Protein backbone atom coordinates (compact mmCIF):
# COMPACT_ATOMS: atom_id res chain seq x y z
CA UNK A 1 0.00 0.00 0.00
CA UNK A 2 2.65 2.51 1.07
CA UNK A 3 4.87 2.01 -2.02
CA UNK A 4 1.86 2.79 -4.15
CA UNK A 5 1.37 6.15 -2.40
CA UNK A 6 5.06 6.92 -2.90
CA UNK A 7 4.84 6.45 -6.65
CA UNK A 8 5.42 9.70 -8.58
CA UNK A 9 2.56 9.15 -11.00
CA UNK A 10 -0.57 7.06 -11.02
CA UNK A 11 -2.32 5.84 -14.13
CA UNK A 12 -4.57 8.66 -15.41
CA UNK A 13 -7.43 6.15 -15.57
CA UNK A 14 -7.14 5.40 -11.85
CA UNK A 15 -6.88 9.09 -11.03
CA UNK A 16 -9.95 9.81 -13.17
CA UNK A 17 -11.87 6.96 -11.54
CA UNK A 18 -10.85 8.31 -8.13
CA UNK A 19 -12.21 11.77 -8.98
CA UNK A 20 -15.40 10.13 -10.24
CA UNK A 21 -15.85 8.22 -6.97
CA UNK A 22 -15.05 11.40 -5.00
CA UNK A 23 -17.94 13.00 -6.89
CA UNK A 24 -20.29 10.23 -5.77
CA UNK A 25 -19.33 10.99 -2.17
CA UNK A 26 -19.82 14.76 -2.49
CA UNK A 27 -23.21 14.35 -4.21
CA UNK A 28 -24.52 11.59 -1.94
CA UNK A 29 -23.23 12.68 1.46
CA UNK A 30 -22.54 16.41 1.18
CA UNK A 31 -25.10 17.53 -1.41
CA UNK A 32 -22.29 19.35 -3.22
CA UNK A 33 -20.52 19.20 -6.58
CA UNK A 34 -16.76 19.60 -7.04
CA UNK A 35 -15.87 23.13 -8.06
CA UNK A 36 -13.18 25.76 -7.56
CA UNK A 37 -13.79 29.06 -9.30
CA UNK A 38 -16.59 30.42 -7.07
CA UNK A 39 -14.00 30.56 -4.30
CA UNK A 40 -12.11 33.19 -6.31
CA UNK A 41 -15.28 35.32 -6.23
CA UNK A 42 -15.64 34.84 -2.47
CA UNK A 43 -11.95 35.71 -1.98
CA UNK A 44 -12.21 38.87 -4.06
CA UNK A 45 -15.40 39.83 -2.23
CA UNK A 46 -13.87 39.20 1.19
CA UNK A 47 -10.76 41.25 0.35
CA UNK A 48 -12.76 44.17 -1.05
CA UNK A 49 -15.27 43.73 1.75
CA UNK A 50 -12.71 44.18 4.50
CA UNK A 51 -12.32 47.77 3.24
CA UNK A 52 -15.71 48.54 1.71
CA UNK A 53 -18.23 46.16 3.24
CA UNK A 54 -21.34 48.16 2.27
CA UNK A 55 -20.24 48.19 -1.35
CA UNK A 56 -19.65 44.43 -1.54
CA UNK A 57 -22.97 43.72 0.20
CA UNK A 58 -24.79 45.80 -2.39
CA UNK A 59 -22.92 44.47 -5.45
CA UNK A 60 -25.27 42.14 -7.35
CA UNK A 61 -22.61 39.54 -8.13
CA UNK A 62 -20.83 39.41 -4.77
CA UNK A 63 -24.12 39.28 -2.86
CA UNK A 64 -25.14 36.18 -4.84
CA UNK A 65 -22.37 34.32 -3.03
CA UNK A 66 -21.66 36.36 0.10
CA UNK A 67 -25.19 37.48 0.88
CA UNK A 68 -26.57 40.88 1.78
CA UNK A 69 -26.37 42.98 4.96
CA UNK A 70 -29.51 41.40 6.38
CA UNK A 71 -28.71 37.89 5.21
CA UNK A 72 -24.95 37.41 5.06
CA UNK A 73 -23.53 34.09 3.87
CA UNK A 74 -20.27 32.62 5.17
CA UNK A 75 -17.03 33.28 3.27
CA UNK A 76 -15.19 30.16 4.38
CA UNK A 77 -17.70 27.48 3.41
CA UNK A 78 -17.49 24.05 1.79
CA UNK A 79 -15.78 24.99 -1.47
CA UNK A 80 -13.43 27.51 0.17
CA UNK A 81 -12.19 24.78 2.51
CA UNK A 82 -11.83 22.48 -0.50
CA UNK A 83 -9.65 25.00 -2.34
CA UNK A 84 -7.37 25.58 0.67
CA UNK A 85 -6.93 21.84 1.14
CA UNK A 86 -6.12 21.34 -2.56
CA UNK A 87 -2.77 22.92 -1.73
CA UNK A 88 -2.22 20.57 1.21
CA UNK A 89 -3.34 17.45 -0.68
CA UNK A 90 -1.01 18.16 -3.60
CA UNK A 91 1.82 19.07 -1.22
CA UNK A 92 1.37 15.81 0.71
CA UNK A 93 1.26 13.74 -2.49
CA UNK A 94 4.42 15.41 -3.84
CA UNK A 95 6.13 15.02 -0.44
CA UNK A 96 5.43 11.26 -0.35
CA UNK A 97 6.91 10.74 -3.79
CA UNK A 98 9.61 13.43 -3.35
CA UNK A 99 8.55 15.10 -6.59
CA UNK A 100 8.29 18.70 -5.37
CA UNK A 101 9.41 21.32 -7.83
CA UNK A 102 10.29 24.99 -7.63
CA UNK A 103 9.18 25.87 -11.10
CA UNK A 104 9.44 29.57 -11.88
CA UNK A 105 9.65 29.47 -15.68
CA UNK A 106 8.40 26.27 -17.38
CA UNK A 107 10.67 24.68 -20.02
CA UNK A 108 8.34 25.12 -22.99
CA UNK A 109 7.86 28.76 -22.04
CA UNK A 110 11.59 29.35 -21.61
CA UNK A 111 12.29 27.87 -25.02
CA UNK A 112 9.85 30.23 -26.69
CA UNK A 113 9.87 33.41 -24.59
CA UNK A 114 13.17 33.34 -22.72
CA UNK A 115 14.15 32.79 -19.07
CA UNK A 116 12.75 36.04 -17.60
CA UNK A 117 10.88 35.30 -14.36
CA UNK A 118 9.19 38.70 -14.33
CA UNK A 119 7.78 38.19 -17.79
CA UNK A 120 6.46 34.74 -16.88
CA UNK A 121 4.89 35.96 -13.61
CA UNK A 122 3.24 38.87 -15.40
CA UNK A 123 1.75 36.59 -18.06
CA UNK A 124 0.63 34.11 -15.37
CA UNK A 125 -1.09 36.94 -13.50
CA UNK A 126 -2.82 38.22 -16.64
CA UNK A 127 -3.80 34.67 -17.65
CA UNK A 128 -5.37 34.26 -14.22
CA UNK A 129 -7.56 37.30 -14.86
CA UNK A 130 -8.58 35.95 -18.28
CA UNK A 131 -9.26 32.42 -17.07
CA UNK A 132 -11.57 33.47 -14.22
CA UNK A 133 -13.37 35.94 -16.41
CA UNK A 134 -14.09 33.07 -18.82
CA UNK A 135 -15.04 30.72 -15.98
CA UNK A 136 -17.52 33.13 -14.42
CA UNK A 137 -19.00 34.04 -17.77
CA UNK A 138 -19.56 30.35 -18.54
CA UNK A 139 -20.69 29.56 -14.99
CA UNK A 140 -17.82 27.34 -13.85
CA UNK A 141 -14.33 26.01 -14.48
CA UNK A 142 -12.79 22.67 -15.44
CA UNK A 143 -13.96 21.09 -12.17
CA UNK A 144 -17.40 22.66 -11.72
CA UNK A 145 -18.37 22.64 -15.37
CA UNK A 146 -16.01 20.13 -16.97
CA UNK A 147 -16.19 17.27 -14.46
CA UNK A 148 -19.23 17.92 -12.24
CA UNK A 149 -21.38 19.33 -15.04
CA UNK A 150 -20.11 16.84 -17.58
CA UNK A 151 -21.04 13.86 -15.43
CA UNK A 152 -24.54 15.25 -14.83
CA UNK A 153 -24.88 15.48 -18.63
CA UNK A 154 -25.54 19.22 -18.38
CA UNK A 155 -25.85 20.93 -21.76
CA UNK A 156 -24.06 24.08 -20.51
CA UNK A 157 -21.04 22.08 -19.36
CA UNK A 158 -20.51 20.17 -22.57
CA UNK A 159 -20.67 23.40 -24.60
CA UNK A 160 -18.12 24.94 -22.24
CA UNK A 161 -15.83 21.90 -22.35
CA UNK A 162 -15.76 21.70 -26.15
CA UNK A 163 -15.16 25.44 -26.56
CA UNK A 164 -12.39 25.49 -23.96
CA UNK A 165 -10.63 22.56 -25.61
CA UNK A 166 -10.87 24.08 -29.05
CA UNK A 167 -9.56 27.48 -28.01
CA UNK A 168 -6.86 25.91 -25.82
CA UNK A 169 -5.52 23.92 -28.77
CA UNK A 170 -5.53 26.97 -31.06
CA UNK A 171 -3.87 29.17 -28.41
CA UNK A 172 -1.18 26.62 -27.58
CA UNK A 173 -0.31 26.16 -31.25
CA UNK A 174 -0.17 29.91 -31.84
CA UNK A 175 2.02 30.40 -28.75
CA UNK A 176 4.38 27.45 -28.93
CA UNK A 177 3.84 26.08 -32.44
CA UNK A 178 5.60 23.01 -33.68
CA UNK A 179 8.78 24.09 -31.94
CA UNK A 180 7.14 23.62 -28.56
CA UNK A 181 6.19 20.05 -29.26
CA UNK A 182 9.66 18.67 -28.81
CA UNK A 183 9.92 20.12 -25.31
CA UNK A 184 6.81 18.64 -23.73
Amino acid at each position, binding site marked *: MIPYFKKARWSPYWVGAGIGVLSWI*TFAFMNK*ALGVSTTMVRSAGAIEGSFFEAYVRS*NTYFSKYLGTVTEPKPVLE*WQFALVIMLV*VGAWFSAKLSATQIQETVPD*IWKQRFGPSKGKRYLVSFL*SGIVIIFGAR*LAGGCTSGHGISGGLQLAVSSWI*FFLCLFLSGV*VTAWVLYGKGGKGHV
Partner: protein
Amino acid sequence: MFDSFFADFQTILAGAFTGFVFGFLLQKGGVTRFNVIVGQFLLKDFTVLKIMMTAIVVGSVGIYGMRSLGLEVVFHIKATALLGNALGGLIFGVGMATLGYCPGTAVAAIGEGSRHAIAGVLGMIVGAGFYAEVYPWIKENILSVGDLGKVTFPSLTGLSAWWFITALLLIALLSFYLINRIEKIKHLEEKIFEII
Protein backbone atom coordinates in the same frame (compact mmCIF):
# COMPACT_ATOMS: atom_id res chain seq x y z
CA MET B 1 -17.83 41.31 6.50
CA PHE B 2 -16.49 38.88 9.04
CA ASP B 3 -19.47 38.55 11.37
CA SER B 4 -20.47 35.39 9.55
CA PHE B 5 -17.09 34.39 8.16
CA PHE B 6 -17.18 30.65 8.89
CA ALA B 7 -19.72 28.07 7.85
CA ASP B 8 -20.52 25.35 10.39
CA PHE B 9 -17.68 23.05 11.36
CA GLN B 10 -19.09 19.94 9.69
CA THR B 11 -19.42 21.68 6.30
CA ILE B 12 -15.87 22.98 6.48
CA LEU B 13 -14.55 19.56 7.48
CA ALA B 14 -16.39 17.90 4.57
CA GLY B 15 -14.97 20.47 2.14
CA ALA B 16 -11.49 20.07 3.60
CA PHE B 17 -11.61 16.29 3.20
CA THR B 18 -12.78 16.62 -0.41
CA GLY B 19 -10.08 19.17 -1.23
CA PHE B 20 -7.33 17.06 0.29
CA VAL B 21 -8.30 13.97 -1.72
CA PHE B 22 -8.84 16.03 -4.89
CA GLY B 23 -5.44 17.77 -4.56
CA PHE B 24 -3.74 14.44 -3.86
CA LEU B 25 -5.28 12.88 -6.97
CA LEU B 26 -4.46 15.86 -9.21
CA GLN B 27 -0.79 15.71 -8.19
CA LYS B 28 -0.60 11.94 -8.61
CA GLY B 29 -2.21 12.34 -12.02
CA GLY B 30 0.48 14.81 -13.10
CA VAL B 31 -1.97 17.56 -14.05
CA THR B 32 -0.39 19.97 -11.57
CA ARG B 33 2.38 20.34 -14.19
CA PHE B 34 2.42 23.13 -16.77
CA ASN B 35 4.02 20.78 -19.33
CA VAL B 36 1.24 18.21 -19.01
CA ILE B 37 -1.57 20.75 -19.50
CA VAL B 38 0.13 22.56 -22.39
CA GLY B 39 1.14 19.15 -23.77
CA GLN B 40 -2.55 18.26 -23.94
CA PHE B 41 -3.34 21.37 -25.98
CA LEU B 42 -0.40 20.59 -28.26
CA LEU B 43 -1.97 17.11 -28.66
CA LYS B 44 1.25 15.54 -27.47
CA ASP B 45 0.28 14.35 -23.96
CA PHE B 46 -3.28 13.10 -23.45
CA THR B 47 -3.20 12.81 -19.64
CA VAL B 48 -5.77 15.59 -19.12
CA LEU B 49 -8.36 14.05 -21.44
CA LYS B 50 -7.82 10.57 -20.00
CA ILE B 51 -8.42 11.81 -16.46
CA MET B 52 -11.40 13.99 -17.34
CA MET B 53 -13.17 11.43 -19.52
CA THR B 54 -12.71 8.66 -16.93
CA ALA B 55 -13.93 10.93 -14.12
CA ILE B 56 -17.00 11.93 -16.14
CA VAL B 57 -17.93 8.36 -17.11
CA VAL B 58 -17.35 6.88 -13.64
CA GLY B 59 -19.08 9.86 -12.01
CA SER B 60 -22.13 9.73 -14.26
CA VAL B 61 -22.62 5.98 -13.78
CA GLY B 62 -22.57 6.52 -10.01
CA ILE B 63 -24.77 9.62 -9.82
CA TYR B 64 -27.39 8.41 -12.31
CA GLY B 65 -27.09 4.89 -10.87
CA MET B 66 -27.90 6.10 -7.36
CA ARG B 67 -30.89 8.01 -8.69
CA SER B 68 -32.09 4.95 -10.63
CA LEU B 69 -31.89 2.95 -7.41
CA GLY B 70 -34.22 5.47 -5.82
CA LEU B 71 -31.66 7.23 -3.62
CA GLU B 72 -32.11 10.94 -3.19
CA VAL B 73 -29.24 12.61 -5.01
CA VAL B 74 -29.79 16.27 -5.85
CA PHE B 75 -28.40 17.62 -9.12
CA HIS B 76 -26.28 20.76 -9.26
CA ILE B 77 -26.76 21.84 -12.86
CA LYS B 78 -25.41 25.14 -14.14
CA ALA B 79 -27.74 27.17 -16.30
CA THR B 80 -27.39 26.95 -20.06
CA ALA B 81 -26.90 30.37 -21.62
CA LEU B 82 -25.55 29.40 -25.02
CA LEU B 83 -23.55 32.56 -25.73
CA GLY B 84 -22.15 32.80 -22.19
CA ASN B 85 -21.15 29.12 -22.02
CA ALA B 86 -19.48 29.19 -25.45
CA LEU B 87 -17.78 32.58 -25.09
CA GLY B 88 -16.72 31.73 -21.54
CA GLY B 89 -15.22 28.45 -22.74
CA LEU B 90 -13.30 30.17 -25.54
CA ILE B 91 -11.88 32.81 -23.17
CA PHE B 92 -11.10 30.15 -20.56
CA GLY B 93 -9.17 28.08 -23.11
CA VAL B 94 -6.93 31.04 -23.98
CA GLY B 95 -6.19 31.63 -20.29
CA MET B 96 -5.61 27.94 -19.58
CA ALA B 97 -3.13 27.53 -22.46
CA THR B 98 -1.11 30.60 -21.41
CA LEU B 99 -1.24 29.90 -17.68
CA GLY B 100 -0.70 26.17 -18.14
CA TYR B 101 -3.24 25.43 -15.41
CA CYS B 102 -6.96 25.66 -14.78
CA PRO B 103 -8.13 27.16 -11.45
CA GLY B 104 -8.11 23.85 -9.53
CA THR B 105 -4.79 22.60 -10.87
CA ALA B 106 -3.17 26.04 -10.35
CA VAL B 107 -4.08 25.96 -6.66
CA ALA B 108 -2.84 22.37 -6.37
CA ALA B 109 0.35 23.27 -8.28
CA ILE B 110 1.18 25.80 -5.54
CA GLY B 111 1.21 22.85 -3.11
CA GLU B 112 3.61 21.02 -5.37
CA GLY B 113 5.91 24.05 -5.42
CA SER B 114 5.12 25.87 -8.65
CA ARG B 115 5.98 29.57 -8.20
CA HIS B 116 4.36 31.04 -11.29
CA ALA B 117 1.06 29.36 -10.32
CA ILE B 118 0.93 31.77 -7.35
CA ALA B 119 0.88 34.74 -9.74
CA GLY B 120 -1.86 32.95 -11.69
CA VAL B 121 -4.09 32.46 -8.64
CA LEU B 122 -3.60 36.11 -7.58
CA GLY B 123 -4.70 37.07 -11.09
CA MET B 124 -7.79 34.88 -10.67
CA ILE B 125 -8.86 36.76 -7.55
CA VAL B 126 -8.38 40.09 -9.35
CA GLY B 127 -10.28 38.71 -12.35
CA ALA B 128 -13.18 37.69 -10.12
CA GLY B 129 -13.35 41.22 -8.70
CA PHE B 130 -13.32 42.62 -12.22
CA TYR B 131 -16.13 40.28 -13.29
CA ALA B 132 -18.28 41.38 -10.34
CA GLU B 133 -18.05 44.97 -11.65
CA VAL B 134 -19.21 44.18 -15.18
CA TYR B 135 -21.73 41.46 -14.21
CA PRO B 136 -24.89 43.61 -14.57
CA TRP B 137 -23.98 44.45 -18.17
CA ILE B 138 -23.03 40.83 -18.97
CA LYS B 139 -26.21 39.50 -17.42
CA GLU B 140 -28.34 41.77 -19.55
CA ASN B 141 -26.47 41.48 -22.84
CA ILE B 142 -24.73 38.10 -22.90
CA LEU B 143 -26.32 35.69 -20.43
CA SER B 144 -29.76 36.45 -21.87
CA VAL B 145 -28.80 35.03 -25.28
CA GLY B 146 -29.84 31.38 -25.74
CA ASP B 147 -31.01 31.07 -22.14
CA LEU B 148 -32.38 27.52 -21.79
CA GLY B 149 -32.23 27.27 -17.99
CA LYS B 150 -30.83 24.29 -16.10
CA VAL B 151 -31.11 21.61 -18.79
CA THR B 152 -29.38 18.27 -19.27
CA PHE B 153 -29.26 16.20 -22.44
CA PRO B 154 -31.85 13.73 -21.03
CA SER B 155 -34.21 16.52 -19.96
CA LEU B 156 -33.81 18.33 -23.27
CA THR B 157 -34.38 15.28 -25.48
CA GLY B 158 -36.67 13.20 -23.26
CA LEU B 159 -34.37 10.19 -23.75
CA SER B 160 -33.08 8.05 -20.88
CA ALA B 161 -29.78 9.24 -19.37
CA TRP B 162 -28.38 5.76 -19.92
CA TRP B 163 -28.33 6.25 -23.70
CA PHE B 164 -26.01 9.20 -23.20
CA ILE B 165 -23.90 7.47 -20.58
CA THR B 166 -23.49 4.42 -22.86
CA ALA B 167 -22.52 6.70 -25.76
CA LEU B 168 -20.01 8.52 -23.52
CA LEU B 169 -18.52 5.22 -22.40
CA LEU B 170 -18.12 4.04 -26.00
CA ILE B 171 -16.60 7.39 -27.06
CA ALA B 172 -14.20 7.24 -24.11
CA LEU B 173 -13.12 3.66 -24.82
CA LEU B 174 -12.65 4.34 -28.53
CA SER B 175 -10.61 7.49 -27.92
CA PHE B 176 -8.45 5.76 -25.27
CA TYR B 177 -7.78 2.96 -27.77
CA LEU B 178 -6.83 5.43 -30.52
CA ILE B 179 -4.70 7.57 -28.15
CA ASN B 180 -2.81 4.48 -26.97
CA ARG B 181 -2.14 3.42 -30.54
CA ILE B 182 -0.84 6.87 -31.46
CA GLU B 183 1.33 6.90 -28.31
CA LYS B 184 2.76 3.48 -29.20
CA ILE B 185 3.60 4.57 -32.74
CA LYS B 186 5.25 7.78 -31.46
CA HIS B 187 7.21 5.76 -28.92
CA LEU B 188 8.45 3.43 -31.67
CA GLU B 189 9.40 6.37 -33.88
CA GLU B 190 11.49 7.84 -31.06
CA LYS B 191 13.23 4.49 -30.54
CA ILE B 192 14.02 4.26 -34.26
CA PHE B 193 15.39 7.81 -34.23
CA GLU B 194 17.62 6.93 -31.29
CA ILE B 195 18.99 3.92 -33.14
CA ILE B 196 19.62 5.91 -36.32
